[in-house]
């Protein structure tokens, strides 16, 4: 069946019969909806799509997708996805994970899946908290955060998920926000169309244990002034009035007002395809309130995928040695015959 002859699927085709069980108002609903909406766009038949998740509130997502799905164990989804994709290059594999699942217990697997350029799209729901276990600090919780496990505030400095993904050599790195449905669709689409290891952070509101953490910059009335939407090839302009931008002072990014001392021409220009990850790295480290929070694609580069490299070696071995002959193999080496 080629893409042409495929029945045209719609969002509804990707909604499973399972009742959705997140807290009312949870940001996960929006991520699920956007995921279901973007699926038809890939032209991949439903049976060829697999959602693999770890444990956490986010981990429930596969149950709600009418595709194949595997709700695995805490932190290990990338490993299962790696094996599946290596065994079955024909499948489109998504990994659904949370900030604890991906960066606390599962940090190492994420890094290794990324560095291998495993052709998976890993969507990390970052609510900066452990939701399912009822509110402990996560590796993205801000220092000093008071939680059930850290009543005097956590003493651990957070890590920056996007920087981690970049350093792990992910070939696609992006960020979006649960409340911006259009942007999320755009981001999921870009991730879905990428071939190779894609890391997408979605800032997600946990209404129960970390409500409104992102509101200071994602709230409707402020978001244009406090967020930076990255567009390939375009200068880093932001603000309701498009009157602010980011330029480099040596290696230091600075926010400047446009119109007076600085013009758009002075600004950094985004290049998501830059071979060198430095620009993306600098962007990944912009945080509120010193900077607007960047969303969009930070990096998108091409590299041979893990499964393709494995298949190439399989083909090479086959070409060099011919299809394996079990009888011959068993009799290889020194043998002797007793009669």
């Amino acid at each position: 069946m080629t893409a042409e002859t495929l029945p045209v699927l719609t969002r509804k085709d990707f909604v499973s019969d399972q009742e959705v069980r997140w807290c009312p108002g949870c940001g996960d609903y929006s991520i699920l909806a956007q995921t279901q909406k973007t699926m038809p766009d890939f032209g991949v038949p439903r049976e060829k799509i697999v959602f693999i998740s770890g444990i956490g509130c986010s981990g429930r997502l596969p149950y709600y997708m009418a595709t194949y799905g595997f709700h695995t164990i805490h932190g290990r989804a990338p490993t299962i996805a790696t094996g599946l994709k290596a065994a079955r290059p024909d499948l489109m594999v998504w990994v659904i994970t949370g900030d604890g699942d991906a960066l606390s217990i599962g940090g190492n697997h994420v890094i290794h899946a990324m560095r291998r350029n495993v052709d998976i799209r890993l969507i990390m729901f970052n609510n900066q908290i452990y939701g399912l276990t009822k509110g402990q600090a996560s590796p993205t919780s801000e220092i000093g955060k008071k939680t059930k496990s850290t009543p005097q505030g956590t003493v651990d400095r957070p890590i920056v998920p996007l920087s981690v993904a970049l350093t792990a050599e992910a070939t696609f790195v992006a960020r979006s926000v649960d409340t911006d449905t259009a942007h999320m669709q755009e981001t999921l689409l870009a991730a879905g169309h990428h071939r190779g290891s894609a890391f997408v952070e979605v800032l997600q509101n946990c209404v129960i244990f970390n409500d409104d953490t992102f509101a200071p910059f994602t709230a409707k009335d402020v978001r244009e002034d406090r967020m930076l939407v990255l567009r390939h090839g375009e200068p880093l302009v932001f603000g309701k009035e498009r009157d602010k931008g980011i330029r480099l002072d040596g290696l230091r990014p600075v926010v400047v007002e446009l119109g007076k001392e600085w013009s758009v021409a002075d600004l950094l220009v985004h290049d998501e395809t830059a071979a060198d990850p430095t620009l993306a790295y600098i962007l990944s480290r912009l945080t509120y309130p010193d900077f607007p929070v960047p969303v969009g694609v930070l990096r998108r580069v091409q590299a041979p995928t893990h499964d393709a490299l494995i298949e190439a070696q399989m083909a090479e071995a086959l070409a060099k040695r011919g299809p394996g002959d079990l009888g011959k193999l068993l009799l290889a080496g020194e043998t002797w015959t007793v009669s």
Partner: protein
Amino acid sequence: MTTQSTAEPRPQVQELDRVTIRFAGDSGDGMQLTGTQFTRTTAAFGNDIATLPDFPAEIRAPAGSLPGVSGFQISFSSNDIHTPGDAPDVLVAMNPAALRTNLADLPPGGALIVNADAFTANNLQKAGYAENPLSDGSLKDWNLFEIPISTLNARALDGLAMTSKQVDLTKNFFALGLMFWLYERSMEPTLRWIEEKFSSKPVIAEANARALKAGYAFGETTEIFHTHYRVKRASLPPGTYRNVTGNEATALGLVAAAQLAGRQMFLASYPITPASDILHQLSTYKHFGVKTFQAEDEIAAIGAAIGAAYGGSMGLTSTSGPGIALKTEAMGLAVMVELPLVVIDVQRAGPSTGMPTKVEQSDLLQLMHGRNGDAPIAIVAPATPAECFDYAIEAWRIALRYMTPVAYLSDGFLATGSEPWKVPSVADLPSIAVEGWTDRETFRPYRRDPETLARPWAVPGTPGLEHRIGGLEKADLSGNISYDPENHHRMTQLRHQKIANIANDIPDLQVYGPSRGDLLILGWGSTYGAIRSAVERLQAEGHAVAHAHLRHLNPFPRNTGEVLGAYRRVLMPEVNMGQLRLLIRARYLVDAVGLNKVRGKPYRIAEIEEAARLLLTEGAAQ
């Protein structure tokens, strides 16, 4: 050349039934290679053989030091033998440290061949000798042959463009050549090997060949050895044979299983001694459709294997005890989602890092019970290196037919020890193919095959079977999440029953010896050879002693209880503190007695014999 041989003049050629030789030297002396070459030649000659390598965990401990000693024992015979020999007849000691660590195993009167050149003050000191044992009379109980191997070898290589260090590295082949002469072996296979191996380094090839021949010639021409020995071909059952180690046979069995099942195999592994060679070997079988993946750790490895299994491949992971400890959470997931999976554990001495290169059978209970919740899996364990081939296939047969994880327990002795293997014809191997599920109408993710209780293997890519699985308790049939109390009880029982049912599908426990009597020795895994030999000796003396060896450890063969009940006493030798014994006692309420030596070494036949005699006399005294 000085020799203190106390050997009596003997006839030129003497016939022997069985000979056991141990090569021992520094890790840098190439003892494993020497042993392997002797083994290949001897196997190809047609003796029955059994080998036991013994090497340090250090890659290369300081030259001449005690921990740096590496050994290789081979026993070969014109009869059917089961062990590498309790004690060597001949010890080849390439330096003082090798002498010191191995001498205790050589019975008085045994032949002791030493490289006299290595007994320098420096080496003696490293080995902790205050006096030179070659001259202080302390070796008078042995048949000592002092040979200046280094010097003789260097002389043989004279004129080759080599450094003296390079020259010295070939002295093991001098020793090998000498042993070839002593036991009437042909140099041909080794000369061929040298030629191939060093085809791009003609000088090295020449040097090794010369060393080998010089050793052989030395035996032939000097009068140190008054005799040489002949050990006739063994009368093995007809067939084509090759020599295999357990790890080799395991790897071959796995490839065979993939071919027999007609599926891609996917091995995900993380290196660990003594299991790594399975990864190494399988990674050269890509043309058989075998994919291998070195993961970032053992958890990732089993995760990837489960992912591959979910995708319809034969997901496999291999490791040793510490790695199993890391895989248990994921094994529980595989139990819950009921996917086929084979987990190979090449056991080593524990606990913790333990003694990485030494043998032990102490992971059985870890594999049986080491998971959260009630999470039963099947367990098989080959008994000899060659059997590893069959049980790799058997593990896969069970995994595929019952949609279950299967643990395959080998150990360091099986893994690196070797024996002749009668190569089966491919046509005689069982088919273990299973079909994936495709029918939409009848599909339910947890509907079970009425006989095996296996659920359908419905892999991604199959149209119309889209469904979700996971580690939360599944509703019967639908596989949806369920917190229903009755469902959990039912599913827990189904998971148990599925594994228990495998007992209907495996051969009965075989007994070697009388079907009832005074004593049954029950073993599993690599203790096979020592137990069998001990039982043969006792039977020869007329004792009503039998041997049974379990290869299926979960579930047990159906007749196990019956077999156990037919003997007055049951003795269970294990290289652990009594792990199988615990399971046997709990299941059959039989007062089995344990023999439990954990020395990082296989049992000697005599140890088992002695324990058995004790039980037999105890009985007599009653």
